[in-house]
């Protein structure tokens, strides 16, 4: 298993996540996709860490996981607040800030 495999997997995961963010209307799915992109980046960190033979990248991953946990907490809280207000999680129907 070379670094190329790892990076390819990370790229595929990132692309899936990005397509999810761009195409889905459900905010929960969008959040899940964002998580996918984040983990793709973490995987790339691990791959390069292995390639260069030092642990900096892996340390970075721990930070990323911590931040992601916090981000999900905030994101889900926003979604819940939104649902209470609008009784929907469809992003297209939340357009109050339209110019």
């Amino acid at each position: 298993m070379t670094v190329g495999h790892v990076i390819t997997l990370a790229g595929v995961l990132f692309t899936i996540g990005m397509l999810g963010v761009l195409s889905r209307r459900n905010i929960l799915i969008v959040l899940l996709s964002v998580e996918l992109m984040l983990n793709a980046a973490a995987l790339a960190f691990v791959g390069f860490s292995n390639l260069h033979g030092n642990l900096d990248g892996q340390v970075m991953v721990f930070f990323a996981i911590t931040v992601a946990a916090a981000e999900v907490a905030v994101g889900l809280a926003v979604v819940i607040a939104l649902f209470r207000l609008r009784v929907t999680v469809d992003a297209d129907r939340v357009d109050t800030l339209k110019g």
Partner: protein
Amino acid sequence: MAFWAWTTLLAPLVAAVALAISPNLRRSANGPKLAIASVMLCAAVSLLFWISGARGESSWSWMDFSAWGGPNIELGVLVDPLSIMMLLVVGWVGSAIFVFALGYMKGDPSIGRFYAKFALFVFSMLGIVLANNFLMIFVFWELVGASSYLLIGYYVDKPSAVEAGKKAFLTNRVADFGFLLGILLIWRLTGHFDFKGIEEAVSGGALTGADTGTLALAAFLIFIGAAGKSAQMPFHVWLPDAMEGPTPVSALMHAATMVAAGVYMVIRVFFCFESAPGVVDWGWAPGFVAMTGGLTAVLAATIALVQRDIKKVLAYSTLSQLGYMVMALGAGAYSVAMFHLTTHAFFKGLLFLCAGSVIHGCHHEQDMFRMGGLRKLMPVTFRTFTVGMLALTGVIPFAGFFSKDLILDALHIKHMSGLQILATATAGLTALYMARAWILTFFGEYRGHAHPHESPKVMTRPLVFLAVISVVAGFFYGPFQDYLAHWTPKKLGIDASIAITSLFVVGLGYGAAFFVYGKGMDRAVALKNRFRGVYTLLDNKYYFDDFYSWLVRSVQQSVAALCRVFEEWVVVKGMVGVPVAATMWIADRSRRLQAGQLNFYAYCFAGGVTLMLVLFFVFFGGGR
């Protein structure tokens, strides 16, 4: 010397500021006393300077632009015979008036405000007197204008007083603009603002060719400034209206200080006038300075003949006497002008205070036709007014006789025969209108409805003090000219033939007054009906005010309408409106980008990142 000069300058300011910021002081009896003390300090210091023969100059750099090739602007005090003489006038006449006002303004609820403004006015005047350079004189010149506005409009609930204050301020502003231009022209010509530097640069034939022409123009502009403050034609219109202020204000401004400032300033910078051709003398005719003075003297004296208000008579009389002073300036007799200024300050201050006493005694009645017979009721006021009148009309041996005769003498020596005749005739008119006011006020039967009474001692004592000086001051015409030797080209004496002529004319004036007004009003009314055209002309003050109103209404208002069109179409609709419309249009187009669709934003974000990556590889990708 320097310490006392600065102290006397700043003391009234301290009093004014203290009264302005402390409501308790304004309400207490100590407020007026503080203001009076500050003026009495000035009187004491002036006496000290006079006796000790102090001389000197002390200046302090205020704003120095010399590093950038500009002027070094200084604030400085100059103590020399001229400023000491003026300090004496302002200090002593001012003290008498300040004390008098204590009685006159008694019971006025805002007497503290009155004394604050009064002290501020004295401070401004002292600044003019002590200034050692043109810029400082200009600063205080404007301060006098501003504080005179405050004082004339003292009765803030009286619309006519407020209007009069505005008129005085605006008229002075017009003239001050000329003054400022003159100062700047002098600076361009000589590079100096201080009087010493200018004197060295212009006198003794130091200027040649076109420069003398520039100096003449500068002198003309400076004289416009002086004409504004000293109320010469055509800037005289503010002075009679300024009688709306309380009578002590009229006494201070129109006898000793503000109107004297113009004459004083011309004497201060007399070298500018001496060295400029055509200002003092055109060779074939008197220069415009003397002409202005002569015209003002005679026109004002004729208007005074028909006034009903006792203060208005004195106001026009002041104009007329200022005309005399300016005539003396025009004849190059600067120390004589200063002498007349000094004596006039005392006897005109006295007359105004007497008028104030009469007005106070008659319960704020100013119309002379509702007075009469006050001789018995107000004996002290009557006697002092008589002294003031004799001094003003130039009856020997009162002060006015000497100072007026010296002016006639100066005109005679310069061969200004026309003006000499005019001035002599004005002396007769002066006697006529003063005797008229005297008879109407003090003789005959009382025609009013109040119960006149003599004023309290705090008011009559200043009258007696000023009356004594008005009697004796004239005899010192010789020493006075010696004292101001620097300003005296040729010492003048009393010429017997001129004196007898003028005394004869004055006698004629008195005779005419007694003939017309001595026995009731019948002859006066008959005279008025016979010369109705002349009376209307005089009653309308030669239509100066109407002319100015017309000027403002038609000329100024049409220029203003033109400016308004420019403003509305070019400034508002063009320079402001076009950018506003453009911004609105762009905003209206661009706001559609804010669709409110989360996915649209995400696409934009992804597209932007992709674009940045592509650009990054295009520009930096080949650098491996």
